């Protein structure tokens, strides 16, 4: 059973990429709906399998690591696989209605979309440093292609900027990998961390870790390397922006986190952890602050991504040299933050797309009077905003709560103001949008109602991110499942 699930996960996206490449947009839409269905089913199946009897290692080609590529299929991985399935399904569905079939180049959305999905699945499951590099490149290039789709000057500009950042990042990462391989002669993360654990081996270098983390944080748009993100996410079509903000940036962070949790203990240092955490903290404040002053709606959302991603980097200080339960608490908090941000941000971008379509302008102040028409999309935007603000009962709140707890427990109280101020600032920019929509102004009749299904999709995502806080317990219990013997929490 599991082999087939793995196959479905790794290969159907690739197959669908090829299929959709051969047909035009409308046929690609039909094919993709089928593929999305398959993917969701498969992801659910694998998630259930792991939740049922624990994670396992999967050897591709039947060759064990270090000779072959070994995938690590554990609770965290399948959690993200499932998340990807949900968000990508929503974005694909939305795009299939949102994008205009008449534009010839939109047909290329589907193959890029499927390659992106394949790359994401590969990264979540990847346990081999070099394989992760290839997966990252798969993701980056298809993401760049999606941003540049349509090839309008501003989009190209954003895409090039994005591509340059991504290339530099992946090279830095690859250099780190090269050094690691040179030292240990192995590419599997688990293998390297095992070697580091053994007494005999010489102490590892810090530089490889630094290089890999630099590359990955650059791809994750950590302050001050975030310059490429807002233009790229702001200018892409809304479904694309949703994919990028919700999933793509998370992929590189996920790798960074895995490396940190496995190797950071040996190769990292308190200073490094604090530095990364500090940059994340600055990103939270700075990103929210910039979001507050953007004139264009999607730029607001894009900058909010910079801020929300900043929270994730608190993982590094909160897991270095702290007690095991505290570290676990922090990991759970970050996982929740990733999930809820993915859902909320996807909802927000899709809703923003609908709003833009409704009022026919991408400026915030053009929303005046929209709330009179009571469009679902505004609600979805608001509900997603609640999660970003970290107000209960959203997943964002649960995440913030766990982070507060672990900062208090680890005695690193200086993260508290960041967590609180970040929430308030995000409230500020979300309410700025509300405010604009509540403004009563004459001549708001030029208002177009997007089709129902376009409005329903972001609503579903927003409700998921809102309700996540209520079911945080079960979700997290799967994530901490150990290998082999399952069940135990």
């Amino acid at each position, binding site marked *: 059973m599991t082999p087939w699930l793995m196959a479905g996960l790794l290969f159907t996206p690739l197959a669908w990429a090829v299929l959709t490449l051969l047909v035009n947009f409308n046929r690609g839409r039909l094919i993709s709906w089928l593929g999305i269905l398959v993917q969701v089913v498969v992801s659910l199946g694998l998630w259930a399998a792991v939740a049922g009897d624990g994670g396992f290692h999967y050897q591709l080609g039947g060759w064990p690591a270090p000779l072959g590529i070994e995938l690590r299929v554990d609770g965290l991985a399948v959690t993200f696989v499932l998340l990807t399935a949900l968000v990508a399904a929503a974005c694909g569905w939305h795009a299939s209605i949102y994008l205009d079939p008449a534009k010839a180049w939109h047909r290329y959305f589907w193959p890029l979309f499927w390659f992106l999905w394949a790359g994401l699945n590969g990264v979540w499951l990847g346990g081999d440093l070099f394989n992760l590099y290839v997966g990252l490149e798969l993701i980056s290039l298809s993401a760049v292609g999606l941003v540049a789709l349509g090839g309008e000057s501003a989009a190209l500009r954003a895409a090039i900027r994005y591509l340059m950042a991504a290339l530099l990042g992946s090279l830095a990462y690859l250099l780190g990998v090269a050094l690691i391989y040179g030292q240990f002669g192995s590419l599997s993360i688990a293998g390297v961390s095992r070697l580091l654990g053994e007494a005999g081996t010489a102490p590892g270098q810090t530089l490889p870790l630094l290089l890999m983390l630099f590359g990955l944080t650059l791809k994750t748009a950590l302050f001050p390397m975030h310059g490429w993100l807002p233009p790229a996410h702001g200018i892409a079509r809304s479904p694309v922006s949703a994919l990028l903000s919700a999933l793509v940036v998370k992929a590189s962070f996920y790798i960074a986190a895995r490396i940190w949790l496995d190797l950071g203990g040996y190769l990292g240092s308190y200073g490094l952890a604090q530095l990364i955490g500090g940059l994340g903290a600055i990103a939270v404040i700075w990103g929210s602050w910039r979001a507050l002053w953007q004139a264009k709606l999607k730029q607001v959302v894009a900058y909010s991504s910079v801020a929300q991603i900043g929270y994730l980097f608190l993982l590094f200080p909160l897991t270095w040299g702290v007690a095991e339960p505290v570290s676990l*608490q922090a990991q*759970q908090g970050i996982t929740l933050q990733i999930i809820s941000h993915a859902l909320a941000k996807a909802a927000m971008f899709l809703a923003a797309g609908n709003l833009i379509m409704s009022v026919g302008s991408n400026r915030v102040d053009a929303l005046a*009077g929209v*709330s*009179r028409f*009571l469009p679902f999309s505004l*609600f979805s935007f608001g509900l997603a905003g*609640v999660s970003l*603000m970290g*107000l*209960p*009962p959203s997943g964002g709140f*649960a995440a*913030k*709560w*766990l982070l*507060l*707890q672990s900062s*208090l*427990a680890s005695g690193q109280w200086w993260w*508290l103001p960041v967590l*609180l101020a970040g*929430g*308030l600032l995000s*409230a500020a920019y979300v*309410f700025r949008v*509300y*405010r604009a929509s*509540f*403004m*009563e102004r004459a001549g708001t009749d030029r208002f177009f109602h997007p089709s129902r299904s376009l409005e329903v999709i972001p609503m579903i995502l927003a409700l998921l991110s809102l309700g996540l*806080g*209520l079911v*945080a*317990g079960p979700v*997290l219990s799967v994530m901490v499942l150990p290998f082999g013997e399952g069940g135990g929490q």
Partner: protein
Amino acid sequence: MSLASLLPVFALMTSLLAAVIIFTLPERSFRLRTLVNLGAAVIKLVLVGVMIWGIVQGRAYEVAFTMVPGVRFVLRADALSMLFAGLSALLWLLTTIYAVGYLEGSPNRSRFFGFFSLSVASTMGIALAGNLFTFFLFYEMLTLSTYPLVVHRGTPKALRAGRSYIIYTLCGGAVLLLAIAWLHGLVGDLSFRPGGYFAEVEDALRGPLSLIFVLLVAGLGVKAALVPLHGWLPQAMVAPAPVSALLHAVAVVKAGAFGIVRVVLEIYGLDAASDLGLLAGLAGVAAFTIIYGSARALYQVDLKRLLAFSTVSQVSYIILGLCLFGPVGVAGGLVHLVHQGIMKITLFFCAGNYAETLGVHRIDELDGAGERMPATSVAFTLGAFGMIGVPPLAGFTTKWIMGTGALAVGMDWVVVVLVVSSLLNAAYFLPILHRIWFGERQAAWPQERRWGRLETSAWLLWPALITAVLLILAGLLANLPVSPLSWVELIVAREVAL
């Protein structure tokens, strides 16, 4: 779990579902919306009644599940929560009736009523919350669901008011979150229980606990409009009258006060709180707020702003009562939670009636309103007298009990505060009453509307009259077993172990 133990959930759901349904209703379907509104309100009232009955029998209703690892979501119906739940359920019904009449023919009604029900649902959740975490959950939900009501009119003024409202309340919420998280980190998940947890505090914890208490009160004080955190309240007056009524009498202000009650009685416990020397400070703040609010009210020309400042002062009675160290004082404070609600909502209903029917907003325009709208004016007069504390009205009961409580614990200065504030109340209410009844009408009303033979729309009139009657009964029949007072005595018997 049995069906009965789910009662709190149902009580919550009635208004939550109502909100969802109303949001999906089209703007024009007036009948259906009104039906849903009133139906939900009535059902909720019944459910609350059933729970009250059960609690008298000594039953307890509780639903709990783990939300985030280490934190439980608890809905529990106990005597104290029923005090607040009952109040909000009753006044929700009346306010809804009133709002239906008030907003007739104005735009964005399904948005309004949707958020209206949502905020009542949050209030219900606040009442039924079984631990600080759950309380905070609904406390923030209340903030979000009341914002659209405050900015409902969409005018620049309303948007400004909404902005300061949201800034105040969200910052308060952040402080509250910090305090709760810290407390949780120190002593774990504390569900409310009579007598609190810190009967004996080891010295290591004294410092942190005091600081946390300050943070908690600061966070809750924003909604409770403790000076100097009251700035948003007078501005929020731009909201439609039913909203102001809801904000002042039931939802927001009371949520803050109720939270402080929960913290003092059921987290820290009276003894610990006073032992830490926290109540004295709180009493000082409350007393100052009482005087300050009344003093500011003297100088208002806008009727609703005057009422706002009077609220600032009145709500602090509840908190002051808590600080009287004794069961009697606590009883006075708690019963004022109900009495002030009834009196204040009456006043707001009447103010709304004046505004809707005669277009009167300023006090100096009220001359001769008495003969034009006798019923409304009678209700208003009763409310004002109640506020001043004229026997045998509700306000009198409160002040009397609190006074005796203060003397019992030898805090005579509190009596002085009570007397001064009553004099101030008289000083700003009596001139208004004089204008209403004895003022000579020169000019025509700013913008008058006719409603057939009734002085104003029945939707607007009846709620005001009902609440007026209620506030007489609450005072007159204070010793009957059905009165708020006797319920409060039941609570005090259970809460403050003697």
